[in-house]
């Protein structure tokens, strides 16, 4: 059996004249959380929906658990779980009934109680689905995706529209899936989400992968430490090149010791203070903005 849950080579998909995906390669290892990150319109959902079997690729090789998802085989559908970007339930069934319905589609479903506990809906199990809050509905979406005890779970933007507390809760839940040995392939446009969750990340932009690796590798691959302090003078007076952001002088550098030495000497000679000085490693967000931020869309 291949070490990869998902392998994609040279994936392409166009809608009329618009090329949504233009030659994407992906390899998702078994048992890892993999994040596909990019701005809106970058091709994330199109790529994911091809892997789920909802769309056909124009070109490229796609293998999901050893199957070609375009064939729509039941044998594959029994082993994957899909959480689409925005769906509704649309019935007048309760949480419990809805999960029973979906469990009935699979040969070896997760036990109902475990399923409900995994997504933290114990208190709402007898509630009609249409009376759930948005966050609860999203958790039910995930529970439906997990109903068949899948090896591989697709999560399309699992936390879009969540408040910060709900997002942390969702992250805990997704980490819990990893400890159950599941492979998770998620899309997101939040870099902090990828950083908090993913073992590996691919950054997609305009239908192409522009960077990939672990969150640490992506951070280390470009510059950088970020040095920042409050400053109201002319940037040209400083001994190092900075950009001004919200009344702060900000410097991104891969040689922080030298830059700090220059700055502190400059301040000491003038008897000035570097107020609000901070020295932090670049977050993935900044790497991401550098890679994807100048998207013309």
């Amino acid at each position: 059996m291949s070490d990869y849950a998902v392998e994609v080579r040279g994936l392409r998909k166009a809608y009329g004249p618009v090329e949504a995906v233009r030659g994407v390669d992906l390899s998702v290892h078994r048992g890892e959380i993999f994040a596909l990150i990019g701005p809106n319109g970058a091709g994330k959902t199109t790529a994911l929906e091809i892997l789920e079997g909802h769309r056909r690729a124009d070109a490229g090789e796609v293998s999901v658990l050893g199957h070609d998802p375009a064939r729509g085989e039941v044998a594959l559908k029994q082993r994957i779980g899909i959480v689409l970007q925005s769906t509704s339930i649309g019935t007048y069934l309760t949480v419990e009934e809805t999960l029973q319905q979906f469990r009935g589609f699979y040969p070896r479903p997760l036990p109902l109680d475990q399923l409900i506990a995994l997504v933290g809906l114990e208190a709402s199990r007898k509630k009609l689905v249409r009376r759930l809050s948005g966050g609860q509905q999203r958790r039910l979406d995930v529970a439906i995706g997990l109903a068949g005890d899948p090896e591989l779970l697709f999560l399309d933007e699992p936390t879009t529209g969540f408040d910060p507390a709900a997002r942390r809760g969702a992250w805990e839940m997704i980490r819990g899936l990893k400890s159950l040995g599941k492979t998770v392939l998620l899309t997101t446009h939040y870099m902090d989400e990828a950083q908090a969750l993913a073992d590996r990340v691919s950054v997609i932009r305009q239908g192409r992968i522009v960077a990939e690796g672990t969150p640490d590798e992506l951070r280390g691959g470009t510059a950088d430490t970020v040095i920042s302090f409050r400053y109201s003078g002319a940037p040209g007076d400083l001994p190092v090149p900075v950009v001004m952001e919200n009344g702060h002088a900000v410097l991104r550098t891969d040689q922080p010791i030298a830059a700090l030495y220059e700055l502190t000497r400059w301040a000491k000679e003038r008897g000035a203070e570097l107020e609000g000085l901070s020295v932090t490693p670049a977050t993935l967000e900044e790497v991401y903005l550098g890679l994807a931020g100048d998207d013309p869309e």
Partner: protein
Amino acid sequence: MALQQVGWENRSFWRNPAAAFFTFLLPLLFLVLFNALFGDSELEIDGRQLDGSTFYVPGIAALSVVSACYTNVGMMVTIARDLGVLKRMRGTPLPPWAYIFGRLGQALLVSVLMVVIVTVVGAVAYGTQLPESTLPGFLVTLLVGSLAFCALGLALTAVIPNADAAPAVTNATILPLLFVSNVFVPLQDPPEWLAIVGDIFPVKHFAAALQTAFHPDTTGAGFEWGHLAVIAAWGVAGAVLAVRFFSWEPRR
């Protein structure tokens, strides 16, 4: 799996106040109203003498089947499609036919229940004939009719652009037909063009075939082959169009 789908759809249907009212209570309300207003009148339709109740009981039975199959299926499947329910189902091992089976099975269940209620209420309250000697023709007419209107309901989803338009499109296509098809209004001596319009579409044939089953003068098993052929032809056309144009993806 397919039978379980019927069960889930059925449970959900009866909890949905709008569906239960329009599909279930409204035809029964019409049954009571029309019989109270016109039940005792003497009518002549297509050369056949009958009293108001013998006109309205089969008419409302036809209405019940049309609203449970055509209107209910057309509307609810479109709404499910737009909410992404159909797409979600497509990603599971549930076979597509089993989902459709669940929807249609629920519609057929409601149809049967409604027709039984209408028939019994007709016999008890309005003295209409029970379709006894005509039972074979009655049952075959109901089966052909409900399958045909289900198929047409599914075909209709393909031309409904989105969930917001679903009630408007289903009602706009069916309400005028109900008025020219001997369901709401007895057409005694209608203008010729109106009679022709009614004859083209399946509702009038369905109502006429059911009237035969209820009419005391009917001899034989009550089969109306000419009417059944028209209904079946519409059903087959609906099924072909549904298979060809049905969409599982929301249209946005």
